[in-house]
């Protein structure tokens, strides 16, 4: 069964249909990419799936269960996590604490035990700090363990968001342009990181403009155009799909 299924989903902003009767599925495992020209509705799709926007019509199913209209924190509890195109780092915290927020669902977050600083809260906090440091090392940010988030460079913040998203222990991870603004060397490292994440069994869905990254890392590609699914298939199939070439790859096709 598919991990994520979207059935005739629609969303409009002020009469402008950004997602238009869209249906697609993402199967369990591996790396999937969503590509499409600017304004195709990629980020809006992520915002709908993660619960930040509510769709006008259509259904979203996660692992067979309907999740349409659920608040983002409920989606997180169901195993969905994401990063953001425009960084949404908690700049008022340390890098480590950013990741620890990601573990919110896996610790006692009630008020009274916290206020009384019960020994088990202290113990669990220490464990979480340990695990968070491990995640920072996993994404290649070992040096950020003691740093404030607002002191990190842009490329590190991109990875910090990934580490934070992984801390929720997702089954499905949505990455919104993880390589945007990065140089080729950094993009290569993100490529490796995505593969490493996929190897741990997390299903990854990627929105990305960097075609080399998309083609290199993803097993399945979905092409969005004006809010509808234009084509899907392997990199090879997409490369030779005439609709895709016409609609999207016209001027960028030479990179393929």
């Amino acid at each position, binding site marked *: 069964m598919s991990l994520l299924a979207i059935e005739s989903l629609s969303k409009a*902003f002020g009469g402008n249909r950004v997602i238009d009767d869209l249906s697609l599925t993402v199967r369990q495992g591996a790396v999937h990419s969503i590509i499409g020209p600017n304004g195709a509705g990629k980020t809006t799709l992520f*915002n709908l799936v993660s619960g*930040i926007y509510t769709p006008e019509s259509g259904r979203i199913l996660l692992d067979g269960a309907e999740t349409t209209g659920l608040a983002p924190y409920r989606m997180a509890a169901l195993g969905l996590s994401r990063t*953001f*195109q*425009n960084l*949404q780092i908690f700049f008022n915290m340390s890098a480590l604490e950013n990741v620890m927020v990601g573990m919110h669902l896996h610790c006692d977050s009630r008020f009274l035990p916290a206020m009384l600083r019960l020994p088990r809260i202290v113990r669990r906090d220490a464990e979480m700090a340990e695990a968070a440091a491990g995640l920072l090392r996993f994404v290649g940010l070992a040096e950020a363990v003691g740093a404030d988030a607002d002191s990190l460079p842009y490329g590190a913040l991109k990875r910090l968001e990934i580490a934070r998203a992984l801390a929720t222990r997702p089954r499905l991870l949505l990455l919104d342009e993880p390589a945007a603004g990065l140089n080729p060397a950094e993009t290569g490292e993100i490529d490796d990181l995505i593969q490493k994440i996929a190897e741990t069994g997390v299903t990854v869905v990627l929105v990305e403009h960097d075609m080399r990254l998309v083609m290199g890392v993803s097993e399945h590609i979905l092409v969005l155009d004006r809010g509808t699914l234009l084509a899907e298939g392997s990199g090879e199939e997409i490369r030779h799909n005439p609709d895709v070439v016409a609609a999207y790859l016209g001027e960028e096709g030479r990179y393929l």
Partner: protein
Amino acid sequence: MLTEFLQFLLSGITVGATYALVGVGFSIIYNASQVINFAQGEFVMLGGMMTWFLFDAAGLPLAVAVPLAIAGTVVVGVALEKFAIEPARNASIVTLIIITIGASIFLRGSAQLVWGRDFHAVPALSGDAPINLSGVALNPQSLWVVGSTLVVIVLLHWFFSRTMTGRAMRAVAFNRLAAQLAGVNNRRILMFSFGLSAALGALAGVLIAPITLTYPDVGIMLGLKGFCAAILGGLGYPYGAIVGGLIVGISEAMTAGYISSAYKDAVAFVIILLTLFFMPNGLFGRRGVERV
């Protein structure tokens, strides 16, 4: 019955027009700077106090005292922008709120120091003899208040739609960065909007002082009611602030007339809370879509 209602309505429109002027001032400054200027009420106080001082103590004719009082308040407004807001450009919302509240305390303190804590009467612009309109007593000053507010609205409309500076101010409100790239001088706009808001506040002060008397603390409630008007209409919509001001003024007068004058001052805040509970961005404010 009807006369009574009309009487309340009339006094409500009069006070409401004052709130509207103050509220428009809030909106103009907000549009230029995203700052809520809690010293807006002190502009009202300064307008009234300076008029009283120039007329009563300095012996100038009203026709001279009023423009001078408004000009004096404009100077204070521009100075406030220059010396308190400009140096704190990058501060957080809360910090900026505290700065303008500090400014309002400073201005009240200065007014007490210069003019004392007493209440002062400012003469009405054309006498106090009420005009009788089939049972409804019309205070001539009310005509001045409402008439001036109408003139101001027309002038503002012309200013924002026809003049370069007015259009630039709208551009800044819409997108500060784009306006700057298009060659708009943001700092000048900022200073100008503080001056304009100060002038509107001072005008409100001059107009309402004959009805309410003037004293150093008169601006606190007037400022807060003006803030209510601006928020009710939707922050950053000067026309919304006018509607907001009238709603607040009329409901206040009706409450005082029919229910209880004790709770007159609470009405504005009850209305604002109920409105915000159902329309978190005011009556005309657009709902922002969270962009992530």
